């Protein structure tokens, strides 16, 4: 299974929606406290070496998140700790990059999500309590969504409704928004502690999962949001990121500060269906490929990126 060593601490990993052998990794020096950052674009290959770096972009500040464009196969977006959002194009020569540096957030940009249905816009979540909507062709944001009382850690578009998205914040709430509405349309006070990540179910557009510092993952139905559909316990520490599988309706993958990556089937009694403990530091980024069923990747503060097929051992040679 491919393993890549990054010079800095890993923060985010995302598979390309165009090339099933390509993924992007965002890293930050000194655990993201203070230092430079680097955005890697990696390529998987059936021959050895199993994983190689196609190109890397250095940034002045840490890269907290990365997102691939859904409209342009070579364009990706990086969330930078200095509050900027930078666009890169791997088809252009390295000296022409970055394409853009969009500086509007007042604080670190912590989350990004590209619209998978309309494919022309993306959202950025920042520690300045706001979420901004952008398109590739505009130098300024289209809208700013400011309602959270604390840092917004994560933002996720609804896979079916192109105007709806959710944001997860340190004010312990998840807000559902519609870009056509002036304010949020729903507030889910989901946890008693900060909510670090949220993601929608790809096959049931009313289900949303939230991951919190309270070590649990809760799945909510927006039609009845007072009570969670289910609560997934099992992580030893805060859950940092979650993703619903693009291929299987009930599958969730999560990574946590307990250094493990866990797989859950939230519809069955014994929900924890897989556990990978390959990381030796906080597991901070995880993703499942949209193009290859079962292919997943994770990265963490141990400066490694693992790519493996579900069911296999990530550390296997």
């Amino acid at each position: 299974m491919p393993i890549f060593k990054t010079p800095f601490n890993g923060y985010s990993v995302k598979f390309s929606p165009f090339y099933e052998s390509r993924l992007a990794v965002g890293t930050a020096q000194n655990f993201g406290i203070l230092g430079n950052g680097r955005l890697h674009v990696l390529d998987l290959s059936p021959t050895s070496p199993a994983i190689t770096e196609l190109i890397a972009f250095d940034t002045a500040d840490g890269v907290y998140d990365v997102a691939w464009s859904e409209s342009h196969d070579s364009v990706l977006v990086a969330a930078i700790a200095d509050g900027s959002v930078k666009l890169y194009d791997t088809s252009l020569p390295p000296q022409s990059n970055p394409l853009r540096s969009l500086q509007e957030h007042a604080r670190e940009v912590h989350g990004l999500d590209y619209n998978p249905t309309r494919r022309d816009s993306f959202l950025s979540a920042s520690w300045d309590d706001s979420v901004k909507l952008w398109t590739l062709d505009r130098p300024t944001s289209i809208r700013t969504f400011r309602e959270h009382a604390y840092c917004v850690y994560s933002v996720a578009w609804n896979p079916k409704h192109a105007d709806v998205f959710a944001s997860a914040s340190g004010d312990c709430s998840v807000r559902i928004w519609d870009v056509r509405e002036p304010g949020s349309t729903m507030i889910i006070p989901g946890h008693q502690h900060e909510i670090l990540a949220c993601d929608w179910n790809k096959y049931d557009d009313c289900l949303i999962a939230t991951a919190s510092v309270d070590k649990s993952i809760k799945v909510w139905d927006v039609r009845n949001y007072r009570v969670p559909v289910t609560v997934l316990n099992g992580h030893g520490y805060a859950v940092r990121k979650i993703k619903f599988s693009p291929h299987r309706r009930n599958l969730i993958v999560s990574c946590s500060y307990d250094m493990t990556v866990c797989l859950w089937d939230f519809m069955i009694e014994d929900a924890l269906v897989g556990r990978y403990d390959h990381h030796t530091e906080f597991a901070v980024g995880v993703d499942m490929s949209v193009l290859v069923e079962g292919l997943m990747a994770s990265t963490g503060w141990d400066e490694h990126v693992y790519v493996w097929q579900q069911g296999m051992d990530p550390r296997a040679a």
Partner: protein
Amino acid sequence: MSMTTKAAAPLGSTDGKPQTTPEPVQQVNEAQQDARPETVKQISPPSVFVNSEPIREEQVQNAVKFLSHPRVRDSPVIHRRSFLEKKGLTKEEIDEAFRRVPDPPPSLQPSSTNQDGQMKPTSNVQTQVPQPAAAAPGAVVSRVGTLSPSRFHWYHALLAVGLLAASGAGTAVLIKNAIVPRLKSWIRKVVLEEEDDLVKKTNSKPSLAEEAAAAAKAAAAAATDVAKASQEMLNSRNEERRHFEELMKLLDMQVREMKSMSNSVQKLEGHVNGTGRTNSVDQEDYRFSNSISKQSYVNGKVDVDTRSVRSSSPPISVEPPAPPHPKSYMEILAMVQRGEKPSNIREIDDRPPNPSQQPSNPRFAPIPKPWELSQAQNGSNQLLQSQGVREALDYKVQVNGLNYLEDESSVPWGQKKNVRITEIANENEVKTGTSGVRTSDLVQRVWVPPQPPPVAIPEAAEAIRRPKPSAKEAVKQEELGENQSVTESSGVTDELQRITKISESGGTVEINGGGVSSLNSSEIQEEQEHGHEGN
């Protein structure tokens, strides 16, 4: 930046909403009554993502009590809202509570159209619509409000003086009537006693004995009293100790709360640049120090119960213990907090060399998502909502292309490209037909000579997407009451709105530039035909 302020202040935003957007709200209600979240044919926004609960009066009243508290008045609006949200109130309930509280804070909502606010003096203060008429009564109300407390003060003072005078007079009378005669009688008694003493001295012995006995009894009583008193003292000490311990606990809690408050103050104060990510670090740091004090976790992993619990877990009332951070992390954190900069940081110029550089043309059509395919399969012939509508390049490669993709082996990209382009060209041909020809599309696939790949020229794409706005479009823009300047945002939001509406309405809206919507339906038909497994 003007953008940020306009989208801010949720307080007033939903105030304006019921008045400015009556139609969508109505339609939302209708959709809810249908109890069918998946309305496709209606031109209504997805209703499931909006609160459909009615306003709970009890919650609103509790919120009003909370908001009326003087200490709460001093706190910023956003904290009050956050608190109420955590208590489970919906946005509507919170807004209603804010409306009811007598002296509401001003909102920054310029587009709010509370023109009937003159009926309710409270909401007058809320609207900052630049209408002097509305502003004047509002000012008067606030002035009256400030006057009344001072008047109250006068009355209060008058009452106090009156009471004092009355009590003074009363005590004077009492003294005169009760105490003076007592004094007199006491003097008389003393005089009489002196006289009696002379008489009493004659009855010496038996009275002495009696007196001694009485004294002994008194002494015994005194001793028992002392014993009782000492016991009580012991008891009270125990109680005091208990109280003291409780006090200590409370103090501990308060200290914790103060720590958290100081942390939050730090976060609020610090738009920290140089001192690094003290934010999330603080969160973990604080908990880390907390865990040290609790001594609940030592290094290394904790044995975790790997079985997940499906039912609800007991609420976590204690702060979750911090995960053990890597040692170098703590070192770096300490260094940064001291103000030192780690030595491995380089000066990097990551500015864009050419800020107007255009992205390179995409080489491939976007690939449909697995969940979109399976839904096209399972779903009806009706349109899926809001599939990305762009020009020809956007969308729906056919199954053949996908089969190639799933193959892990190295099929040269060139081959795949050709396949896709053929399919796209095919689609081009197909979609130029009328939508009525759908059934025939299902049956046959017309071979068309491959056309050159439709290169995405963004400007052309926008031109196609942006026909002259009809009156309908203009009305929609007003309805949605966006705060942004029409010139700046109308382009994109207009597109976004219109595109969604088009796809939701099943492509019935007329558009220049051809079958953008029929693109959807024809593609989906073809997918159904191929029956690709996406699940």
